């Protein structure tokens, strides 16, 4: 692939990226969240068309204009979320769409399908009857079925997007065996992963992307975790748009979390959020940060552990409980959890504290409008009026409405989960300024972010998480790209030291 570019609605996702992979080779593709790995692979897999650049297979330029044409060229993409029909059996899944019958109404060639499926299953080391329903398989077995499906289409290029994300150690080991076998058969494997150990174990070469650009290639011998992390995060920080950090960590503890075990997490997490500080949570997507903050907000109950709010026990069983105590969450998924899109700015702003605007249940529209207008003015939300439906606003302005909705009811603890995701650079700077102002006003602000720059530029203290565990707590000058990068990817040397402390 050469000079590949891709833009989405004004945002450049990929710029002039080139990549090459040989048959019989495992190429690891690495990079932070949003670096463009998945987009690049979707282009190769025909899911999205490139805006620029050229793709050559065995030297011949090809045009990939859909999943079908990618398949014809022998490219198979295995998505992170498996694309299997759990209600059908293994054979039916393997040959879904390639049953090989002349007519839609032809009878399914079950016997032939089962026979071919058995052979394919043997190749991926899965000793199961092809008539077993996929819904009954483990995730690892499903992964093998996906690979078998790719092999059934004679894939020469196999792309795997974080295949071990939900596999046990044992299952991962089996997957690696299959990958090595396929490599020996001459298949070209492009392997996307965040896990350093895996990449070092499997990859013949590593290509690193950063901010939608090619950041570097490393051969097997030189691919140490330090070098990979440096390529992944090593960008110039443009401090211009972060507000100046003050010494804000002196405030008293507002929210104290002790050994809180979130459903699905292997261990408890402990930390304290202080009045007037910005506490960051860094980590890769899936590190368990969102699960942690939704538990604090009462969406899902904690399995164990305790929380104290202003020294009083705090165990919310619903967002309602948390809101009553002044703990608010601006969720990661604004459109699904943060806003009622078909409603107006006013209606969204007053929703959580609606009773305050009513007498005997009757709403005082004028009071609602005053508060909404005050929040719009405070946050600089760009809109013709507060009657505007939020669905028509840009991402940055929508996020301001979410902020305004909580600011209208004086928070104690304000949790912001990915506050600038999908927001353009200009609006980001404004949101950072407001967040700093809130902390200065004495609110304990918690910021969850996958954007390293944001965490470093904004936060006073940073909790780093990896695979649902807390791997470190950094303060002040310890908050560096290298330290965070090492803790969140699990590059060994630094990580062990941090956990011990």
């Amino acid at each position, binding site marked *: 692939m050469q000079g590949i570019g891709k833009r989405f609605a004004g945002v450049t996702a990929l710029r002039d990226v080139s990549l090459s992979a040989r048959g019989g080779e495992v190429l690891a593709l690495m990079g932070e969240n949003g670096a463009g790995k998945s987009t690049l692979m979707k282009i190769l897999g025909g899911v999205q068309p490139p805006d620029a650049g050229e793709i050559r297979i065995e030297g011949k330029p090809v045009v990939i204009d859909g999943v079908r044409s990618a398949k014809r060229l022998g490219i198979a993409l295995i998505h992170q979320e498996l694309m299997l029909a759990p209600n059908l059996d293994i054979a039916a899944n393997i040959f879904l769409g390639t049953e090989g019958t002349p007519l839609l109404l032809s009878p399914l060639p079950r016997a032939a399908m089962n026979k071919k499926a058995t052979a394919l299953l043997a190749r991926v080391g899965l000793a199961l009857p092809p008539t077993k329903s996929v819904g009954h398989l483990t995730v690892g077995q499903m992964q093998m079925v996906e690979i078998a499906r790719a092999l059934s289409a004679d894939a020469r290029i196999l792309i795997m997007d974080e295949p071990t994300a939900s596999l046990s150690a044992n299952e991962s080991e089996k997957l690696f065996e299959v990958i090595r076998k396929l490599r020996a058969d001459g298949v070209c494997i492009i392997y996307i992963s965040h896990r350093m150990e895996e990449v070092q174990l499997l990859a013949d070469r590593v290509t690193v992307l950063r901010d939608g650009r090619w950041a570097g290639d490393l051969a097997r011998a030189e691919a140490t975790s330090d070098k990979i992390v440096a390529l992944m995060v090593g960008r110039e920080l443009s401090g211009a748009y972060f507000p100046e950090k003050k010494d804000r960590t002196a405030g008293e503890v507002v929210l104290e979390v002790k050994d809180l075990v979130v459903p699905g997490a292997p261990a408890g997490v402990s930390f304290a959020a202080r009045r007037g500080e910005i506490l960051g949570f860094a980590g890769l997507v899936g590190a368990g940060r969102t699960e942690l903050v939704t538990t604090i*907000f009462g969406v899902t109950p904690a399995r164990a552990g305790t929380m104290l709010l202003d020294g009083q026990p705090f165990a919310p069983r619903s*967002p*309602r409980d948390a809101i009553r105590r002044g703990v608010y969450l601006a969720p990661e998924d604004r459109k*699904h959890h943060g*806003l009622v899109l078909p409603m107006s700015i006013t*209606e969204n702003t007053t*929703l959580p504290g609606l009773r305050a605007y009513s007498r005997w249940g009757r*709403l005082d529209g004028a009071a609602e409008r005053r508060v909404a207008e005050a929040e719009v003015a405070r946050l600089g939300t760009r809109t013709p009026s507060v009657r505007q439906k939020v669905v028509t606003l840009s991402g940055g302005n929508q996020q301001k409405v979410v902020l305004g909705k909580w600011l209208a009811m004086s928070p104690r603890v304000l949790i912001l989960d990915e506050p600038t995701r999908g927001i*353009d650079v200009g609006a980001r700077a404004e949101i950072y300024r407001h967040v700093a102002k809130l902390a200065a006003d004495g609110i304990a602000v918690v910021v969850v972010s996958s954007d390293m720059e944001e965490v470093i530029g904004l936060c006073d203290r940073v909790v780093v998480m990896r695979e649902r565990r807390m791997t470190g707590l950094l303060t002040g000058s310890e908050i560096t790209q290298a330290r965070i990068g090492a803790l969140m990817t699990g590059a060994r040397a630094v990580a062990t030291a941090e956990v011990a402390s």
Partner: protein
Amino acid sequence: MKRELGMGSALVVICLALFISNSDFLGQSNAVNTLRQISMLGIYAIGSGFVIIAGGIDLSVGSVVGLTGVIIARISSQATGGGGHSLALGVVVALAVALLVGLLQGLLITRLNLQPFIVTLAGMLLIRGVSQTVVQGGTLSLGTSPLLGLANGGLFMRGGDPLLPYPLLIFLGVIAAGGYLLHSTVLGRYLYAIGGNREAAAYSGIPVKRIETTTYVISAGLAGVAGVCYAAYIGQMSQQVGVAYELYAIAAVVLGGCSLRGGEGTVLGIVIGSAMMKVIDNGINMFQVRYQDADGVPRLWRLDANWTFIIVGSVILIAVVLDQVVHVVQGKQRLRVVEPPPAAPTPAAPVS
């Protein structure tokens, strides 16, 4: 409001056309009867509207309408099969049962996370079955119960017909109360929020399950009120009373501009939708064209009443198709307006 305006204008046009074709359409007897029909449908359609605006669906409405009348007849009727108790007792018990049905369905749906379609479908069959066992497959007459006056009586009697029949008065009361609840109160705002985005409503601390349960209680309660009117109107209760009424209610609600996805709709719209349903129903009987046959003899052409369902079905389809077309066109315009400006330049990075 655009939807209400459009449907309202269409309704006026249809009424005018009917009046021109047959002046009896607005004659006292037909007009009052049509108003009575609209009112009885509108009462329970507003109840269904509450459920639908909050994103649910209630299929048990028609069965509750039927059960209410059956209970009243069984308890209060002086005729054979009736209990001979006071009318008030019958009405109170019937309404209480209706509210209880709504509460039970609401709790099943919200506390056990069951799908409203399934729960109320089962409720529809169950309640219909209860009515059937009470009437033993036959009919129960209300006899000469004073309740009959509820449907036929009213204010400003003129020539044996009231200008304002009681069901219309009840309907006006329900419109006022429903409009106030939905458009002026915290509860109403919560209904729109839950229908618009249930997750975001929960994340905003709204007691989603309690509010949803309330909508099913309101729906069943208003179905009970409508059931009392229908009992008075029909006089003979059988298991057939109220069959498929939930579908008329849903049709009226959708015609009035509510979305089955929830979060949209107004009481005014539901009123217009109910009126549309019953005016069309009545119009099929009233519509006529005068013409002269080959011999010059004046004749009347009328619509075949067997066409009723075809016409009602077509009207609903046309309305939703038009609505979708308007939505798509508006959506495209919105996209054009919001088209992002050329990519913002990256912030001035410090020169290194």
